[in-house]
């Protein structure tokens, strides 16, 4: 994944980059490449921060990814939008857990528990 200047990118391009990172994360998980996953995690955090900093918090632009065919994309889109669309995002997490979409189902279930216990407070 290339380093790029996020500030120069449009919202659509940022959403595209977010999706590409999530797909690479999925591949890294399948290959047990944890170091790569964690590098990709940091890249995704930067994309989320950039979207959040845009006018009216453009993390909402990630909501259409709730319907993506890939479970890692849906999981990450849901977690990234918990602050702006809490109910809908939570439903996506619940669906991943209910559908036994492992390995994402484990993190989806743990995220719901972390929300309910106040461990995770999305901002």
């Amino acid at each position, binding site marked *: 994944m290339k380093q790029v200047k996020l500030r120069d990118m449009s919202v659509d391009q940022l959403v595209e980059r977010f999706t590409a990172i999530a797909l690479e994360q999925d591949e890294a*998980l*399948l*290959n*047990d490449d*944890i170091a790569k*996953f*964690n590098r990709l*995690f*940091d890249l995704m*955090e930067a994309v989320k921060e950039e979207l959040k900093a845009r006018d009216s918090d453009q993390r909402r632009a990630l909501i259409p990814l709730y*319907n*993506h*065919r890939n479970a890692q994309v*849906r999981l990450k889109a849901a*977690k*990234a939008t918990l602050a702006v669309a809490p109910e809908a995002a939570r*439903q996506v997490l619940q*669906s*991943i*857990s*209910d*559908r*036994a*979409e*492992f*390995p994402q*189902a*484990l*993190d*989806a*279930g*743990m*995220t719901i*528990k*972390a929300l309910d216990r106040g*461990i*995770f407070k*999305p901002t």
Partner: protein
Amino acid sequence: MRPRELIEPREKIHRMLDHIRWYIHELKWRNACLDFEIAARRFHLATKAGYNPSQPRVPTGNPDGGQWTSGAQGGAASIGHNQGPPLEDPPEIPKQEPSSAKERNNFLKAAARWLARAIRMGGPVGAFVAAYEAMSWLDTDRPFIEAYQDPPKTLDELQEAVTSPQRGYNIHHIVEQTPAELDGFPRSMIDAPDNLVRIPALKHWEINRWYETKNENYDQVTPRAYVRDKDWSGRTRVGLDALIESGVLKP
């Protein structure tokens, strides 16, 4: 009276026809046995994953016709629409044994996960199971895929199973052993029977990977780092939650 040379070939032909008929019957019987065996294996895998034959299905004619339903609004196992995308195609089964451990493991993971999803969603598993049963190179690894289909068990059941090691399963520490040891917890506590469970090996790997990967839930650090300042009961809570959300431990 017909000459002997004309009678013998006719009897010979009858005997050959009888033999062919018998052979066809045997093939039909063998085919029926095979169908039964496939159906039995499918049922075995499905019941391991918690399939309930009396669970209601959405009536035909509906968009989700034939799929499982809880009978209540928002059944968890429906396919497509707002409940997520439809079940994807099964992973391709390599005809030859993969040359690397990575390829082999990736297939085992993909197959186990797809089968679990398909069974949960009431998807068609017959063709995949039949193809997978036919691959002799999988003989030693099939227990890993089948163990993954186990339904959730009680903590007592998982702890008692520790004394019966079995292929396809790993002994798992509820509180992760290495960080606990680094933080000064004694081995007697780490290896105590109440901290050990026998779980499907592929679930054990998934939980380990989850502990190792950075997570938004815990201020962008890994769950492994997050539990480092927790006491034993705090670590146990996270460990038990991970087993529940993996579908290994009954809630």
